[in-house]
């Protein structure tokens, strides 16, 4: 079964701006799905419609087979949302935010306290339970929203840039956490501008730009489409000009740093052999760009030129 099916979703805001121009998506049950796109692409708009925070202009949304218009309450009770912007009562103590949210899903107060404790411990916020939300740090506020989204144990968890402004240690802990709940059966939809995050976590991906889906495929398939990769090599001795290697395009970017573009069919071994023959030893090597980032930039550039020509 699909956790989420969106068909031909349109959204025109009151000011006449068309934020979604007919998007269709299908997210399988149990998936870890990346919804990517540049700023203003329409990701949060789509998510707000799925979560009933924004009215759609046209189209259909169903959650685990329940239509969001016809079986509203059943559909709603399966969704958990971590929105992009903070949307809790800053003056309320942390634990009450969770207990109230649980109450809105029909969980009685005593059980709600247990759920809240469970959620807060998972997100490492239990010590802060009596603190008013406004006194939490930015990263803690994000985690508070994750804890709140989980309190009614949703089957579909949607996270809109959950790791924005979160330090690297906590970000890694969050990744671990998301993987864990995904492996326990929660379907996850993630938006992020950190593409290595999407690459390492997500199995399927959609890229949206200017209110249209420009790509929807599996992560591995998308990455396999990458024709060229750019590497940065640190070499042992200073050079004054880039080495000439037949078939490879090398550029000197520092006296001991070289960038090289490698085609998919070219092997790394022959690159190193040629360099060795010229007496150049490679001390270290890294990708110039994250692979997904490279694809992403191409896809978005392509969609922009299509947009302009149409």
């Amino acid at each position: 079964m699909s956790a989420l099916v969106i068909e031909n979703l349109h959204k025109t805001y009151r000011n006449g701006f068309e934020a979604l121009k007919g998007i269709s998506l299908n997210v399988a049950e149990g998936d870890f799905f990346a919804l990517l796109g540049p700023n203003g692409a329409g990701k949060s708009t789509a998510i707000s419609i799925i979560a009933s925070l924004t009215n759609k202009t046209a189209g259909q949304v169903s959650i685990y087979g329940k239509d969001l218009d016809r079986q509203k309450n059943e559909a709603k009770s399966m969704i958990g949302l971590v929105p992009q912007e903070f949307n809790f009562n800053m003056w309320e103590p942390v634990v009450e935010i969770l207990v109230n949210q649980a109450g809105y899903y029909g969980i009685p107060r005593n059980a709600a306290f247990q759920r809240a404790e469970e959620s807060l411990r998972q997100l490492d916020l239990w010590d802060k339970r009596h603190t008013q939300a406004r006194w939490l740090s930015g990263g803690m506020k994000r985690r508070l929203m994750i804890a709140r989204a989980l309190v009614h144990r949703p089957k579909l968890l949607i996270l809109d840039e959950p790791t924005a402004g979160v330090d690297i240690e906590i970000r890694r802990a969050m990744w671990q956490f998301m993987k864990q709940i995904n492996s326990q059966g929660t379907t996850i939809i993630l938006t992020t501008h950190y593409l290595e995050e999407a690459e390492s976590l997500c199995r399927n991906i959609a890229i949206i730009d200017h209110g249209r889906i420009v790509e929807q495929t599996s992560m591995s398939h998308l990455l396999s489409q990458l024709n060229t990769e750019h590497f940065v090599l640190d070499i042992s001795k200073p050079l004054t000009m880039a080495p000439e290697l037949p078939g490879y395009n090398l550029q000197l970017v520092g006296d001991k740093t070289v960038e090289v573009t490698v085609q998919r069919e070219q092997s790394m071994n022959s690159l190193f052999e040629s360099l060795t023959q010229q007496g150049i030893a490679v001390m270290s090597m890294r990708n110039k760009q994250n692979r997904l980032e490279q694809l992403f930039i191409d896809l978005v550039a392509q969609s922009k030129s299509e947009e302009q020509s149409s």
Partner: protein
Amino acid sequence: MSSGHVKRIAYQTIVTKEVLRFARIWVQTILPPAITTTLYFIIFGKLIGERIGMMEGYRYIEFIVPGLILMSVIQNSYANVVSSFFSTKLQHYIEELLIAPVPNWIVLAGYVTGGMARGLIVGTVVTGISLFFTDLTINSYSLTLLVFVLTSILFSLAGFINAVYAKSFDDIAIVPTFVLTPLTYLGGVFYSIQLLPEFWQQVSLANPVLYMINTFRYGLLGVSDIDVRIALVIIVAFIVVLTWYSLRLLSRGVGIKE
């Protein structure tokens, strides 16, 4: 879990949250009306009232007590819902309710109950204070209680509608200052409309607050400027219309949904 059960718990949750909210800040919510009405009792009731003589057969302080109690109910029910629902909107935590399987009428009922709770608590406190200044006679317990409750429902609804339309803090201050306070003061809290010239008596009859204050006064003292049955019909009609209108605003998502 049946859907009726879910709704009941959602309703209880909103009410609990609302009551905790004003109880926590009681210095801003319960204390000021208690102080203001104490001053009214001292100044208008005791100091000035003793020189005024009788009004409709009662000592002046006895005459104004019902109006002052009801005025505190009106102001506090209204203030509670308008400020609470406006901040719910402003800080976007209305989204906690929008995302959950809570029907609009439960949201409305929850906020209105919160407003009633504050109106009734403040009204009770003010009633308690009035006992230091005069004896309270109660002509009809059931009518008194009925008007007490209906008034708090009516003004909670009005506060809700104000909050839905409000875009800034100024917008939630304008209606109480320019509409609510004049209507209450001119609604016969401090005088019987019999004292007014014929023309202004007729004008006063267009003021809905007049009906509430007079019905409440009738419940306590047994005197009224107007027919109590007509007054009750008018109050209930207002409640029906405002409820319908509030639900319409919610279902159209005015001020809360794009």
